[in-house]
């Protein structure tokens, strides 16, 4: 069993190192060759790509709140957030070359064993249900005091649509953060833990969630945009 374990883990680690060692320039050569061939065979320009099927193909998963968010990402591209959290428009980023390191780097992935995973419940995670009020903010959070009192809104986008957040600042602190409008294909109810976390932690940062978190990301963008206005 140990042999199998090391083989697949080692194979994935080796793949990462192999591609990293080759670097962007050399790796791109074959792809560019194919792309040129593709241009001949397909007159249309390359389209933005995806690895999953759209929800429209799955009627049983259509949302009751379905509003066609056709321009969601386009709107995101036209919107700028002024905080450290930024959303880049797809494909508009300047070409950046991943590093082309010295040949044959003998680097080992970060040491990690199953024993390294602490199996205790997360210390900072609040999986608040809609019925449970968010916990009171900690007594002293100087970083939060930079906000001006008032109610601010911001928009966030994901491929499922747009979410508007409404943030209330009282006494320089985040008093509440709510989902004001939800124009996603799926109901926003499943990210209701996110607003509670924003208040509890006085931050746009919520815990990372494994398993399709695009709507949470959109909410974070929306809160970031709202908080930018509150500064």
């Amino acid at each position: 069993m140990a042999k199998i374990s090391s083989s697949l883990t080692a194979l994935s680690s080796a793949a990462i190192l192999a591609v990293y060692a080759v670097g962007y320039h050399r790796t791109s050569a074959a792809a560019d060759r194919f792309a040129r061939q593709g241009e001949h065979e397909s007159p249309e320009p390359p389209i933005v790509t995806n690895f999953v099927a759209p929800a429209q193909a799955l009627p049983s998963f259509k949302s009751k709140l379905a509003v066609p968010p056709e321009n969601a990402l386009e709107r995101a591209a036209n919107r700028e957030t002024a905080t450290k959290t930024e959303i880049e428009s797809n494909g508009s980023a300047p070409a950046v070359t991943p590093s082309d390191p010295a040949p044959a780097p003998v680097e080992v992935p970060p040491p990690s064993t199953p024993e390294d995973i602490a199996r205790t419940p997360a210390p900072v995670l609040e999986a608040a249900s809609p019925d449970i009020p968010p916990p009171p903010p900690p007594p002293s959070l100087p970083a939060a005091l930079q906000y001006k009192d008032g109610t601010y809104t911001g928009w966030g986008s994901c491929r499922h649509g747009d979410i508007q957040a409404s943030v209330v600042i009282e006494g320089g602190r985040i008093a509440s953060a709510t989902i004001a409008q939800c124009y996603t294909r799926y109901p926003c109810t499943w990210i209701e833990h996110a607003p509670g976390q924003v208040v509890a932690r006085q931050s746009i940062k919520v815990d990372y969630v494994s398993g399709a978190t695009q709507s949470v990301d959109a909410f974070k963008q929306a809160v970031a945009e709202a908080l930018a206005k509150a500064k």
Partner: protein
Amino acid sequence: MTAESYVRSTAVMGTIATIEVVGCDSAETAVDTAFEWFRRIEACCSRFDTASELSQLSSKIGNPVPVSAILYEAVQFAIAVAEETGGAFDPTVGYRMEAAGFNREYHTGRPVQAAFDADDSVSYRDVLLDPAQKTIRLLKPMLLDLGAVAKGFAVDMAARELLPFKDFAIDAGGDLYLGGCNSEGRAWSVGIRHPRHDGELIDSISVSNQAVCTSGNYERGEHILDPRRAHATGNAVSVTVVAQTAMLADAIATAAFVLGPPEGIQLLERIGVEGLIITPSLERFETQGMRHG
């Protein structure tokens, strides 16, 4: 003590990818480079883009085709996982996904159709790799689907790029890699979505220097097919895998989703990764290391 973080998000691979670097305000260049790996791998490995290297490879049947390091490594890993899982994970499932309606480019909604009729008997055994020449030879017409490998691969490449920063997080639509500690100096807290109860997490784990990926039929709808039966699976609603790399976690989560419990758990134990499988009746099956004490 809470450290400031540098956080950026970008739209790539059909999702929003977020990178957080803890305690560093000069990570912009490295984060740019990390995101560029996503775009590079997407350009190579997308089956929805007819200009992608993967699509071009799929149109060349019978001859060894020299490919880039990215595509070679991605396919080689996918085939290795297919062999290990007895075909529960199979990158040649692409044509069956297309036949099942998974054939629309998400921005335009435009259907993407392969220019050939794939053989119904095609499997991962019809993909031959030449490690010396770095060529791939497809024995039959097929549509390779690297969806369960490519995003994890991109996360891993981004993680490799950010390795010097030690403390960082990469979130590609729920495919995560957590390096070092969070801004509070503790192991990263990762919630696992509840597969049925909206707004709830079914569990949370603390992770450091590992990847966490969850395969499930919720936000994106049913997108995992059983390669051995060519229809959507039904034994699990969510599978979470914690592994050293995201490409391994993602691929094994997909395979375990197809297998369902208890075979899925046996697979995870055999591979040496931790994981959690949730069934439609919300019964939990966990690896030994995943169980809380």
